[in-house]
């Protein structure tokens, strides 16, 4: 890592890290016994460990070769490792919270281990930890390869990567000690949010400067999707997280939004986190790694442009479908519903484009589990976007909302689409990055594929069943016109599905662990093929997220 930096760059790194330590000390001093103080200590330790890494290699030999003659791949390698570490953590938390719903005593009478505190560690762990790191790593790879230019910075890629992971760490550790804004998928408190803004601005500048260096006249469409992800997530994050802290010494803040405005802002954010974090960026992966793996150009480049603008334009309107039949004005609900239905067009255009790219290469899909990951991901993308538009229709939503159907829908997207396209991309990327002919074990990729697919199907079917059953039970009337079932009656009916769901999640987690092992073995195997300039970073495949 540090070996590729010149001595002045090492000095910059040290200065940045010392500043971060100082910020940590200030947080600890201001926060004292408040959770802010705990987070101050975490910032000190995190920056201190990185500072130690920089200083211990501070006087090492400087890079001799011309760095501009090669791509900057070290941050990508570390990003993949962090992504997989978060995947195992986040999915383990998911299995744990799912099990708590079936066996509530799995919280063991502690505060930190109750469902309410663990659930955001699962969502943040998988969305931001696993998904975010995978997006950052693959975006660094795609932008360099499609621009035929090296990343426009030596330190900034590391700053983005480690800065983002510090955010994730503050967020997840915060939930365990009771720090949360209680905004779904934006639970991290004000100081972590501010930090993420800084990280994100650096990310944006790095990305746009790398694009400006490109040797191709046209910007390949995958970059458009990554760019939309970076830009719109920034807008969403800033607006939704506007808040005033109780004091400089408090972790707690109050959002500036209230009541119905807050609801609209929250779901404008929440659904567009789905759109621009969990869709746009991953479509960027799809549009690069799928053609590359299949060895065929994308079916229609024009269609990819049309669907890009369709998705970017339509998605932003649909958040209000989370608020059907609530105190939100009727016309806003209808707008959300209308655009949700229209969104199906660009979504299916993307899914169709991906599948038609594979048309004529079905033998490859049959033989190559990596390509099959991406194929199934595109199918699930099509299914989940159809389901999403369907659930956004008001009368359908009246049944599905507040039930497990929503959870099933989210996981059809998150497991079937987001995670599978990520695994497919990583299995394409890892051998290329470490200069290996192929993954360590094709059999293990195959095993992972079937574990992931079985896990997803079990999960999704369990939640469809439980959601629809509960929704119907809530609205069942006796002949006398009274409600047939008490709430508890409907909960009792859920237990078998909660057990099935936890089992499906467990299979998916096992698959991710198999992937970690396979990636680790690929990275450390066949050293002869390694190239000059790969520092010790490549051996660090699975460090703890705290690194």
């Amino acid at each position, binding site marked *: 890592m540090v070996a590729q930096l010149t001595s002045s760059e090492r000095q910059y790194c040290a200065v940045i890290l010392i500043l971060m330590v100082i910020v940590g000390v200030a947080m600890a001093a201001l926060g004292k016994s408040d959770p802010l103080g705990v987070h101050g200590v975490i910032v000190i330790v995190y920056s201190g460990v990185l500072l130690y890494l920089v200083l211990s290699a501070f006087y090492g030999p400087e890079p001799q070769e011309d760095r*501009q*003659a*090669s*791509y900057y791949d070290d941050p990508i390698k570390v990003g993949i490792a962090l992504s997989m570490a978060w995947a195992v953590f986040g999915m383990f938390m998911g299995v744990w919270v799912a099990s708590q719903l079936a066996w509530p005593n799995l919280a063991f009478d502690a505060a930190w281990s109750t469902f309410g505190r663990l659930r955001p560690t699962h969502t943040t762990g998988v969305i931001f930890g696993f998904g975010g790191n995978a997006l950052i790593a693959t975006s660094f790879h795609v932008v*360099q*390869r*499609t621009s*035929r*230019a*090296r990343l426009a910075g030596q330190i900034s890629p590391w700053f983005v990567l480690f800065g983002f992971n510090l955010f994730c760490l503050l967020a997840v550790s915060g939930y365990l000690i009771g720090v949360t804004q209680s905004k779904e998928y934006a639970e991290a408190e004000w100081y972590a949010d501010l930090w993420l803004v800084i990280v994100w601005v650096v990310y944006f500048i790095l990305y746009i400067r790398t694009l400006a260096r490109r*040797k*191709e*006249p*046209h910007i*390949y*469409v*995958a970059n458009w999707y990554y760019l939309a992800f970076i830009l719109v997530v920034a807008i969403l994050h800033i607006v939704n997280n506007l808040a005033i802290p109780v004091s400089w010494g408090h972790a707690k803040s109050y959002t500036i939004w209230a009541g119905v405005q807050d609801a609209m802002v929250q779901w404008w954010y929440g659904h567009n986190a789905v759109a621009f974090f969990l869709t746009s960026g991953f479509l960027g992966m799809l549009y*690069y790694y799928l*053609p*590359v793996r299949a*060895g*065929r*150009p*994308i079916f229609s*480049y*024009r269609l990819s*442009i*049309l669907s890009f*603008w*369709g998705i970017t*334009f339509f998605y932003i309107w649909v958040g209000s479908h989370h608020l059907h039949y609530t105190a939100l*004005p009727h*016309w806003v609900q209808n*707008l959300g519903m209308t655009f949700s239905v229209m969104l199906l067009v660009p979504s299916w255009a993307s899914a169709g484009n991906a599948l038609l790219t594979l048309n004529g290469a079905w033998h490859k899909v049959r033989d190559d589990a990596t390509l099959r990951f991406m194929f199934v991901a595109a199918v699930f993308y099509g299914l989940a976007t159809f389901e999403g538009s369907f659930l956004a229709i008001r009368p359908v939503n009246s049944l599905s909302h507040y039930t497990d159907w929503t959870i099933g829908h989210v996981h059809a997207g998150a497991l079937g689409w987001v995670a599978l396209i990520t695994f497919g991309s990583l299995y394409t990327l890892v051998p*290329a990055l470490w200069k290996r002919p192929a993954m360590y074990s094709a059999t293990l990729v195959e095993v992972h594929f079937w574990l992931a697919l079985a896990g997803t199907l079990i999960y999704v079917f369990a939640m469809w069943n439980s959601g629809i059953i509960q929704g119907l039970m809530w609205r069942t009337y006796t002949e006398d016109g009274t409600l047939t079932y008490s709430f508890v009656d409907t909960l009792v009916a859920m237990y078998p599905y909660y057990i099935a769901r936890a089992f499906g999640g467990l299979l998916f987690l096992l698959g991710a662990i198999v992937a970690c092992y396979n990636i680790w073995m690929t990275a450390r195997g066949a050293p002869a093929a390694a190239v000059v300039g790969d520092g010790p970073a490549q051996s660090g495949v699975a460090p703890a997220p705290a690194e």
Partner: protein
Amino acid sequence: MDVSHDTLVALAKSWGLFYLIAFAVAVVIYAYRPANRARFNAAKKDILEQDDRPWR
């Protein structure tokens, strides 16, 4: 400034739609402009060319 709720709602309902149409037309023109055809074809083929060095 005293903007009434009804004015804002009316604006939202009408101009949002016009904007959508204008935007869609612009995108379609961009995607189907003959001048862009060569560029798009090159872009979709170029990524399959895997070299491992930045171009100088």
